[in-house]
């Protein structure tokens, strides 16, 4: 079973990298970009076979390590 975790900065936390990317896109002539937020994707191969249990396990991983919940939020997809 595979899991995909998206980690993003929480709304309201300034993302200097996203701002820099937005600025660079503007420089390249892409004028319609109102905002850019940069995050990360973490893919896991899991031995688990139960979807619900796998999701609970990955959420626990996010809380303990994969995301810093002081500044980041996460979503979990099980595929």
């Amino acid at each position, binding site marked *: 079973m595979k899991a995909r975790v998206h980690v993003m900065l929480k709304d309201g*936390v*300034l993302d*200097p*990298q996203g701002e*820099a990317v937005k600025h660079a896109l503007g420089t390249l002539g892409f004028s319609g970009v109102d905002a850019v937020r940069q995050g990360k994707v973490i893919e896991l191969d899991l031995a688990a076979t139960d979807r619900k249990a796998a999701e609970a396990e990955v959420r626990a991983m996010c809380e*303990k*390590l994969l995301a*810093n919940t*002081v*500044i980041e939020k996460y979503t979990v997809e099980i595929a």
Partner: protein
Amino acid sequence: MKAAVITFPGSNCDRDLAVAFKAAGAEVVRIWHKDTSLPKDIDVVGIPGGFSFGDYLRCGAIAARSPIAQAVIAHAGRGGYVLGVCNGFQVLTETGLLPGALMRNAGLKFVCKSVDLRVETTDSAFTSGWSRGTIASVPIAHHDGNYTADADLVARLKAEDRIAFTYMQNPNGAVADIAGILSENRRVLGMMPHPERCIDPAQGGTDGSVLFRSLMTALVAA
């Protein structure tokens, strides 16, 4: 005073930190990250600067879950002293021993230079040797020193006099110009600037030695 300095893979200020503790008169033991306990009579744990675990995932995130981190958390829980410098500060926020988080510098550049810090509180074993408002020149060298906290936390840190140092000229976008903060019991200090890099005139300044001498005085008196 007996100090333990932790070394993670990628730490690069561990030796300097040990030298600074020794110069203040401390006995120093060096501890490897895979160790699971600290010697029993340790007064202060130093978590050094560097790039522990290559800054993978987030700065300090992997180090904060390493075997020795649990022993450091237990040491702090017993009222032990902890000093985290630079990457050490990042490790301390990742363990939850200090609140808030350190993000990428607002200017997105690695900043390496001496900066002027204002000593905001003398009510700690680390800062008692200064006068409040003293300006100390201390080097910084970091890419992720942008201290981030929500408005409630900043208000609480101010109300509880837990901001140890602020930048005179903010180099990284840190909220409220914060360069270093104390834990609730005032015995855990995390700071981005490197006091261990200015303890000897040969390093270009000695302002950092005040911190180590303060700690020594406080712990010997205790």
